[in-house]
């Protein structure tokens, strides 16, 4: 058939004893927006890495526009018209926006040995304009830009290549509402131009909105494909998990464990864009904190934990009037912090699961000055067991775990320290439904024991589904407060958010 752009035949890839992708075939047509979904470790990213040339398949064959396709690098794939937007950051500090967009293509602006930065900036500005970006220009250094703005630069870079196939690998999880909308528009345009898009996301509502078809993988194997009307969160969920999962894995409405007693008092915080932020966290409460990525909520988490010193204001533990001034003080008082950026801020990747779990509990493990292997192992075994982390044993390196299991290790670390107050920054970011549900269940159990949770989330359904009370932040101030009730809707939250 003529309109097939990409054909994969029996792709196989193993890492050691793990079969990441087992005999998966697929066809991608012009104008198709295909979602590739599955739990963490189901093989989505591995499959796409083979398509973009970053991994070489063990078996299988690919055809691009009817021709044999064997990319040996991401650059070769790009030259053949296959571009990818990756999950993590792909821009280089110290270069300008234009230099980042035309990375490796400077030759086009060269005359003799000199690269004309004037012509390069001009071309970049045109590109930015076509994307509807106006608040920064080609000459800006990327260091000055936010995560989201940098992501847009990557999009520009991909679009400049005029790809036939664009792969969007969980890019949107890191973006706020407006950033996502931009990506959606681009996808829509590509579709109109009869190009094809492969969209990888954990957000099934988003998939339903953006994609016209969805291919499901489970444990590296092909499970099936849904088309048009069939692409619903319920259908996808069922095929991903392989069993019926009731649509609602959030808390049931109407249950509350909130007590009068205040656990943590945050007063008049002033830092960066944060302006006079105050709130109280009660025992037995999940306090949801939502907003756009740059609204200051992530910094606020770090301040509450003592990792950033605010210019003014203070965080006080109500029980004993201790001021939280450093992570060490926070941890001593059983406060836990789960950062948004797991790989860089919450886990020692090249270190054993055991060391990751015990790091915050050393003082409890100490016998005089000594910490024995056995006590460490016992604590790690117990905490990892409680969270049912999928692993060989606690001596396994953390980097070998899937995203969901990594997050379980982070939670296990704080459970091991008997944390009483938990600050969770995007606790389910990039995590599959199975682990997500487990974390939600654990959160509910914790508040039923009288613990308190501050949950920052960029997912509005999550805020609505889990919080007893929701604070919405905008440009560094609290812009709205909602109690848990049926009347609060996504719309009312978004109004306060933008």
């Amino acid at each position: 058939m003529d309109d097939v752009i990409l054909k994969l035949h029996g792709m196989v890839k193993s890492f050691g004893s793990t079969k990441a992708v087992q005999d998966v075939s697929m066809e991608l047509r012009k104008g198709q927006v295909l979602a590739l979904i599955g739990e963490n470790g189901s093989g989505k990213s591995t499959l796409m890495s083979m398509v973009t040339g970053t991994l070489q398949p063990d078996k299988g064959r690919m055809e691009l526009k009817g021709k044999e396709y064997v990319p040996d690098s991401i650059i070769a794939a790009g030259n053949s018209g296959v571009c990818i937007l990756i999950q993590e950051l792909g821009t280089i500090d110290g270069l300008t926006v234009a230099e980042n967009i035309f990375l490796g293509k400077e030759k086009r602006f060269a005359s003799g040995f000199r690269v004309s930065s004037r012509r390069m900036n001009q071309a970049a500005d045109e590109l930015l304009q076509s994307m509807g970006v106006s608040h920064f220009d080609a000459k800006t250094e990327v260091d000055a830009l936010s995560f989201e703005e940098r992501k847009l630069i990557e999009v520009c870079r991909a679009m400049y290549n005029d790809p036939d196939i664009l792969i969007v690998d969980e890019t949107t999880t890191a973006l706020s509402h407006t950033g996502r909308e931009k990506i959606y528009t681009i996808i829509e345009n590509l579709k109109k131009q009869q190009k094809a898009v492969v969209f990888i996301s954990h957000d099934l509502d988003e998939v339903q909105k953006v994609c016209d078809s969805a291919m499901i993988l489970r444990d590296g194997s092909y499970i099936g494909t849904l088309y048009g009307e069939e692409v619903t969160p319920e259908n996808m969920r069922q095929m991903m998990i392989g069993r019926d999962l009731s649509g609602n894995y959030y808390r049931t409405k109407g249950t509350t464990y909130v007590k009068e007693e205040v656990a943590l008092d945050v007063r008049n915080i002033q830092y960066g864009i944060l302006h006079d932020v105050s709130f109280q966290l009660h025992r037995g409460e999940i306090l949801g904190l939502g907003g756009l990525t740059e609204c200051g909520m992530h910094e606020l988490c770090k301040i509450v934990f003592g990792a950033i010193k605010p210019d003014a204001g203070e965080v006080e533990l109500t029980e004993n009037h201790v001021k939280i001034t450093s992570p060490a003080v926070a941890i001593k008082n059983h406060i836990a912090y789960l950062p948004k950026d797991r790989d860089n801020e919450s886990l020692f990747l090249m270190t054993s699961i055991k060391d990751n779990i015990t790091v915050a509990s050393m003082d409890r493990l100490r016998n005089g000055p000594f910490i024995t292997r056995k006590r460490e192992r016992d604590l790690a075994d117990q905490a990892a067991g409680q969270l049912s982390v999928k692993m060989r044993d606690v001596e396994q390196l953390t980097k070998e775990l899937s995203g969901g299991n990594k997050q379980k290790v982070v939670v296990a670390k704080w459970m091991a320290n008997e944390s009483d107050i938990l600050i969770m920054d995007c606790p389910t970011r990039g995590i599959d439904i199975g682990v997500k549900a487990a974390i939600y269940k654990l959160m509910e159990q914790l508040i039923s024991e009288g613990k308190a949770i501050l949950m920052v989330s960029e997912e509005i359904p999550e805020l609505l589904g889990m919080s007893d009370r929701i604070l919405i932040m905008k440009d560094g101030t609290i812009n709205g407060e909602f109690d848990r009730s049926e009347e609060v809707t996504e719309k009312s939250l978004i109004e306060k958010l933008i």
Partner: protein
Amino acid sequence: MVIEMKMKEAPVLGAKGSKKESNVLKNAEWAKKAVPFLGLLVLVLLFSTTTDGRFLKVANLQNIFSQAAIVMVAGTGCSFVMSHNNLDFSLGGACAMSAVAGIVIGAKFSYAWMLPVCLAVGMMCGLVTAGLHIKARIPAFMAGMCIMFAGRGLAQGAYLQFVMTLPQDYKVLQNIWFYFAVVTIIFLTAYILFEYTKIGKYNKLIGSNMQVAKLSGVPVNKYKAMAFAVSGFTVGAAAFMSIIRGGGVGAQTGTNLETNVLLALTLGGFPLTGGSQAKMRSVIVGALVLFMLNNGLQLWGVDPTIINVIKGIVFLVVVYITIDRGSGGVMI
């Protein structure tokens, strides 16, 4: 738009093939760990069979060990610094300073003061490096280098000012069992600190990822400073050993100590960027490899300048085999 996708039932991949691959991977990891030990073994076999038995003579082996002992002692302390991903370049200078202070005060008051003064001055040097690094935010190797130059200058100046020879009574310590006892005591103590207390554990975790360590409640600066203090303490001990070994302090006391320690740690498989994979045994194995290589080549009659070239090449090969490129973040 018609959209269609083909599916196939996935046959289970031959379990045999994948098992083989995982074994290969495990073997590669294992081989990396074994390289230092194999190197040591190869050197021993090579030199014992090609030097007409001169290498294996007791006097020669004692000579190797007494040279290596100073590096082993300084290296055990330095490994705390290296495990949190810093290099301590102050060692040579700090050693010279401690030795000068020790023997000068010893001569003036009583030689019983020599050891405590060496240890105290060594530790002070470590704390000064730490202070410059942590409080003034100067890269640790720069701060260390300043101390190295200062120490060198001081030792040379003192050499012209004072007579720094050890009295005859202390020469009984010029004995292999003395070196052996010092190495054993320092190594065992450091090993326990490194593996079973917060000092070692936290420093390794800081080397793995400083940000995560901070957010896990590790008082990063405090434990970095402690690492430098431990390093300074062992340098003091090394200074005492060099006084004994050299029968006093000369203008050359402590020369090249920092490079020898760095070479020994690396040859022993200690990760250059620190972290949880760091093992204390690297110091012992590495120091033996370094001085056996030196000694063996000398016995072969190789020109000393060529020996340095060969050491450079061996060092490069070992780093090439053992370095962890994963954390280097090489781009596509």
